[in-house]
């Protein structure tokens, strides 16, 4: 059996079956389910809000009628016709308030006495204004057509645009929102994936070195085979992870596609096109980011002498990842800031920062490709350096610190390559 295959198969199955992977896989789904559950529960409660009762003392019978039509949560206490009765009813908590409407000199005057009807005031005002207009229209002998033409609102069309390489590009508000939201999501996903898969690699490598299995393994195959076997195994686990989300996501979308809420949200947007655009770059950034950090993780893992030190090895990596994450968040607020612009071209930061610059349209396609190319080149360089040190590191079992291990490793690297 091919030895690379032995490592890939072993690493893959061990991790796919691990508790931490399954937890990682299911946690976003469980989280979304919980949030959806809470949302549903709140929505249920909202629809059951008790109607408030209002007494209307007016000579104009259209006012209570218009109120009922405009505010679904209101009911009118029709049996109350005088201010006296209304006051008594309010004092006995039978109604929430009463509205007295008088017409003086052809002017509508309303006065609302209430307990907790603040939310309804705008609608009441609107209804009174409409009545006032009707009253005036009557007085001026306007025809219904004339009235309608008076009420006709002005038209304001809005168009959000962005400037892309000197050209004004039309943009949809919702589309932009989706882009920015996606950038946030991708930033968090990249953070989670990198942290999880980098620490998986560290555990895989440090596990076999820390348990002293490495020497036996290296007497049966090469360090290069082991290195790539482990990395490919972990990478396949990640692909399963992504594939799982794609399948679950598509299935959920298919199921809810015709749901009222979803329809009202997406409107006539072409969700497919937006997703493709979103996945196009983001997935490339995600994959290149994870690969880059996996190489670093393999290098760090090979420095470990004891399995207890795994956390120590992960620290420098976590610091870089967290730095990238924060620059990413900062990029959202200030995409043109010099720190953001520069760090979007620093290979280790690119996967965190560039998606935001793309989302805010502050970067040209050429620059995106340049940063991707830089990251890809840097990944190859990382792979090369990691592998050279890996071969030496795995044989060193000093109980001293990282720096000393690195020094010893460097001596070994030189003596191995100078022959």
């Amino acid at each position: 059996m091919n030895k690379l295959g032995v490592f890939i198969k072993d690493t893959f199955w061990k991790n796919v079956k691990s508790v931490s992977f399954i937890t990682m896989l299911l946690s976003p789904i469980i989280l979304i389910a919980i949030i959806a559950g809470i949302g549903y529960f709140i929505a249920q409660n909202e629809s059951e809000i008790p109607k408030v009762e209002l007494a209307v003392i007016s000579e104009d019978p259209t006012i209570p009628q218009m109120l009922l039509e405009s505010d679904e949560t209101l009911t009118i206490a029709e049996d109350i016709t005088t201010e006296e009765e209304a006051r008594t009813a309010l004092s006995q908590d039978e109604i929430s308030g009463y509205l007295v409407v008088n017409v003086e000199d052809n002017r509508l005057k309303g006065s609302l006495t209430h307990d907790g009807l603040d939310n309804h005031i705008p609608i009441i005002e609107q209804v009174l204004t409409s009545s006032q207009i009707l009253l005036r229209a009557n007085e001026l002998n306007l025809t219904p057509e004339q009235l309608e033409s008076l009420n006709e609102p002005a038209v304001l069309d809005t168009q959000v645009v962005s400037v892309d390489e000197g050209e004004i590009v039309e943009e949809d508000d919702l589309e932009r929102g989706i882009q920015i939201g996606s950038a946030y999501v991708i930033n968090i996903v990249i953070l989670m994936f990198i942290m999880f898969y980098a620490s998986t690699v560290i555990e895989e490598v440090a596990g076999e070195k820390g348990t002293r299995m490495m020497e036996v393994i290296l007497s049966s195959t090469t360090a290069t085979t082991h290195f790539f076997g482990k990395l490919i195994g972990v990478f396949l686990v990640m692909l399963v992870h992504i594939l799982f989300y794609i399948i679950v996501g598509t299935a959920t979308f298919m199921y809810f596609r015709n749901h009222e809420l979803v329809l009202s949200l997406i409107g006539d947007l072409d969700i497919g096109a937006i997703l493709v655009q979103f996945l196009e770059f983001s997935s490339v950034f995600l994959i290149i980011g994870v690969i880059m950090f996996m190489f670093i993780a393999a290098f760090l893992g090979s420095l470990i002498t004891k399995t207890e030190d795994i956390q120590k090895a992960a620290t420098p990596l976590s610091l870089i990842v967290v730095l990238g994450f924060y620059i990413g968040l900062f990029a959202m607020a200030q995409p043109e800031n010099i720190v953001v612009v520069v760090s979007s071209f620093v290979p280790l930061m690119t996967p965190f920062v560039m998606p935001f610059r793309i989302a805010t349209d502050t970067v040209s396609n050429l620059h995106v490709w340049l940063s991707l190319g830089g990251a890809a080149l840097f990944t190859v360089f990382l792979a090369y350096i990691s592998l050279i040190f890996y071969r030496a590191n795995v044989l060193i079992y000093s109980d001293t610190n990282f720096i000393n291990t690195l020094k010893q490793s460097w001596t070994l690297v030189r003596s191995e390559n100078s022959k």
Partner: protein
Amino acid sequence: MLEVKDLKKSFGSLTAVDGVNFTIEKGQIMGLIGQNGSGKTTTFRMILKLLNADEGSVSWNDQPFSKEFFDHVGYLPEERGLNQKMTIEHQILYFARLRGKKNSEIEPLIDGWLKEFEVVGERKDKIKSLSKGNQQKVQLICTLIHEPDLIILDEPFSGLDPVNAGLLEEGIRKARDRGASIIFSSHNMNNVEELCDNLVMLKKGRQVLYGTIREIRESFGRTRLFLESSLSKEEIENIDGVESVSGVEEGIYHIQLRDAEVGRQIFDLATRDGYIPTFSQQPPTIEEIFKQIAGEIDE
């Protein structure tokens, strides 16, 4: 047949191995001894290509040793360890697959090997549930189960009680009998004398002894004499060429000679009145030779 020629290796300014030469035929056992830091592990690592030699060569059946022979190697490193989370079976199969074996070839053999090495535990038990000694035996099984032609054992006896050491010796002999070439290092000279056909001793990376156990011992001359006679301690001490005399009780002596020839003189003197129960003139043991060469630093 493994042939090691003029191996040299230095790390920076430190010369770890300096001119090591030996040959192990099929079905032979070679012992590699030397103090800590004398270059034993580095030598093993160079044979196995874990390290590149600065100079010299390693050949297997008259061809340069290369990665193609990896499947025929069994290696027990000095730094022991297994994956604590794996089961015994999984661990054995993992290493065997890395030696190019199929699961189906090795699976039927596991129970037999566990029994032979008297491992206390079932094949489905996790490694971490085993005692240290049993873990070490599982690792030995991992080293031997794929029937390697070249077996390299770095300190295989350390940490084993006499019963388990006996089982290991048995395992090594069996491998030899089916034609494997075996090399092991040890600090226990009894194991070395009992098991080995040949011996190499390293001191500060240099090869200071090489040959069969007998050749090496004889080369030091028969300078040790066990004598049981009526001679007094003073009489023996007065003989020219006697270095020292020690004895547990009157009449039984351990005599250290400067010159083996003096033995005849003592024999004549001791037997002048006829029968004596013991006159045994022997070369030094491997342990004594080891201590003598290593100098006073070691014990």
